[in-house]
């Protein structure tokens, strides 16, 4: 049976340079990140080049994604959150397209590596901290002090709030990474069952219908998960940014 983890292996394709003993190489991961970015750029540039009043197909896809993210930001972070539209839109599109590309067989899923998702989650985390202090000064600490709490348990609550704040990038990154990893392993294992059962003759062929049906169904589910995880990542980014814009309101 094929190794279900093999699909996540990073292979080096070309070495560009050695900087301070660290090898800078082009890997399959980097290639698929580039494909993702080129795909998004092609969609958006192609969508906005016609500038038709009545949008064509690609233009309406570009418009729908714009409006979707704009509505999400305005409903969770208010109109003040719109200055973070480029960040949220970039994250959403990158994750969505990377997830969707990953569903195609023989491709590499960029978001199935925690280093990628953790980088994006930490980017959001530090954006929240830096913008929070820039906008509110020390008032940003109000985020950790809930109102209407008796003084004698306040230190404990503040401590727990800080822990809760620190745990954000972890849940933010692990959720996306774990969902993509688990989904792809499940698909691979079930697909492996088909070939294994096919080796047992006619009875095996009949039995293999069951995992085949499951693979088809789970592939459909994976398309949904790919979209939902991108959406969850974007909406959590908005919620965290909202804390930086209006702490303790």
């Amino acid at each position, binding site marked *: 049976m094929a190794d279900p983890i093999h699909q996540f292996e990073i292979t080096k394709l070309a070495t560009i340079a050695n900087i301070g003993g660290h090898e800078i190489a082009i890997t399959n991961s980097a290639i698929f990140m580039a494909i993702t970015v080129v795909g998004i750029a092609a969609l958006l540039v192609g969508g906005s080049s016609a500038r038709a009043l009545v949008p064509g197909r690609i233009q309406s896809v570009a418009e729908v994604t714009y409006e979707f993210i704009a509505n999400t930001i305005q409903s969770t972070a208010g109109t003040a959150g719109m200055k973070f539209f480029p960040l949220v839109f970039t994250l959403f599109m990158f994750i969505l397209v990377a997830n969707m590309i990953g569903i195609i067989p023989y491709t590499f899923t960029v978001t199935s590596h925690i280093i990628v998702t953790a980088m994006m989650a930490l980017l959001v985390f530090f954006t929240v901290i830096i913008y929070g202090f820039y906008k509110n000064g020390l008032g940003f600490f*109000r*985020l*950790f*002090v*809930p*109102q*209407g709490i008796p003084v004698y348990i306040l230190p404990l609550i503040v*401590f*727990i*709030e800080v*822990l*809760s*704040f*620190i*745990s*954000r990038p*972890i*849940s933010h990154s*692990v*959720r996306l990474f*774990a*969902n993509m990893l688990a989904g792809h392993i499940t698909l691979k294992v079930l697909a492996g069952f088909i070939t294994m059962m096919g080796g047992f003759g006619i009875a095996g062929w009949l039995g293999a219908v069951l995992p085949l049906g499951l693979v088809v169904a789970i592939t459909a589910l994976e398309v*949904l998960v790919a979209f*939902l*995880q991108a*959406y*969850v990542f974007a*909406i*959590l980014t908005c*919620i965290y940014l*909202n*804390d930086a814009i209006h*702490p*303790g*309101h």
Partner: protein
Amino acid sequence: MAEDTGNDGKDSKRLAEEAALSARLRHLGERLGQKAGNREVEAGPSQDPGQNASALARGFRLSTELVAGVLVGAFIGWALDKWLGTSPGGMIVFLMLGFAAGVFNVVRAAGVSSGPGSRR
């Protein structure tokens, strides 16, 4: 006369055909109306797909919030123990605090309390 009756016959025939056609048209229109009505009724419950999507999204959120809190607590406890040599005191205290933070996260993600520092 024979021609007249012939014409009359043709006219009446055409009239009958038109009547039949318009009847069919009306019938078709009624059936289409019914179909459209049915479709509207069928589309009723899933009128807001965004609602379903965000409910699913919230479900996905909840799954990792608790674990993240516990992990952070455990890591801080472990690091403090290693640094100050207080093993296993720091681990015990911070694991419990991390669990509390995780529960906080879950309660907040479930929308019971709207956020840190919320007035309620």
